[in-house]
């Protein structure tokens, strides 16, 4: 056997050994599905305003999967410290509520958080869970959540209409100024 013949026999054997060891590792990484990020934070949202961000659903399986997106109210004992459950899951909408993913693919889902303009929602820290639910496989089903931590702006917390306050203050000052500048006339009139 010359040098080249020896190599021709050894290389396939080495490749076979590498394949045998590499396959389980690849399989380990290529299974399951995921949601990212695990936690999202939206700070300073004003009443009557909305904010958008995205979560990604990832299918690492070798077959297509379907997921349902939903917003869920967490149980009180599962909340992050200093947060309260979101009062209404209707504040949260998904641009794609039903995600159909091919094998080894991913999709971004745009999440919109909209705070109603009326109500005592300002200056609060809310928590909501953005849930992706897989279709049931026999009797088994998996749900994965992204924690959404939402803080609303304190500027509207008291529900004060500052434009109205400004107008009233202006009117009061003008009235006081007019009374002051015409105090002699008023005194005379009052007699």
């Amino acid at each position: 056997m010359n040098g080249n013949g020896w190599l021709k026999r050894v290389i396939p054997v080495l490749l076979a050994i590498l394949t045998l060891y590499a396959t389980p590792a690849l399989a380990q990484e290529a299974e399951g599905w995921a949601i990212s990020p695990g936690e999202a934070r939206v700070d300073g949202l004003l009443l009557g305003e909305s904010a958008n961000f995205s979560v990604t659903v990832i299918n690492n399986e070798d077959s297509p999967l379907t997921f349902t997106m939903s917003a869920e109210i967490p149980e009180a004992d599962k909340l992050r410290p200093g947060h309260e459950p979101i009062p209404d899951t209707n504040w949260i909408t998904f641009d794609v509520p039903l995600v159909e993913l091919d094998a080894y693919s991913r999709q971004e889902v745009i999440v919109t958080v909209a705070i109603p303009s009326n109500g005592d929602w300002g200056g609060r820290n809310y928590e909501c869970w953005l849930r992706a639910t897989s279709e049931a496989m026999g009797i088994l089903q998996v749900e994965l959540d992204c924690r959404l931590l939402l803080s609303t702006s304190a500027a509207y917390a008291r529900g004060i209409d500052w434009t109205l306050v400004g107008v009233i203050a202006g009117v009061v000052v003008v009235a006081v100024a007019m009374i002051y500048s015409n105090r002699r006339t008023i005194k005379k009139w009052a007699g």
Partner: protein
Amino acid sequence: MKIKGLLPIVLAAVLAVAIPLVALANDDATITITMSGPAVAIDIEVEPAEWAIESVQLNSSYAKDFRLVNHGSVRVDTTIVGTDAEGSGYRWRLRAFSGNNMYEIEYDIEGFGGTGNVTMIPTDFVLDLEGGQSKNFSLTVKTPSSGDSPGGGEAIQAIVTIHAVQG
């Protein structure tokens, strides 16, 4: 006299405009959106992913072993919840014991993970599962001791949901 009277009015007008302007400046507060990063994903897997029980009969027990794997990089907490089992025209209620048209599902987590019944209220399951770790568990379905049973080829549907969130 005219100037003296005009000055407070001008001041008042300035004040009236200034207050709403300050308020508007307040309204321009920045909305900050922070994500925990694309590398941070909630990525758990139940192996095997599917459990279909064939030829279900009354007063029987069906068990299977599973592995819960956290493929992600963050610690996760999980809960488990079940549903009633629905057949065509009848229902098995999920309870902590099996009886007439009542069935139960037990879980057993390896080590000190604990055992218990799957209920229709989410119950803490595997907690503090670190990234890259896994935990073995088993599920046992105990069918009703008496009541309605599925006929040949008929399906009865129940769902056990494992839910995970960043710890």
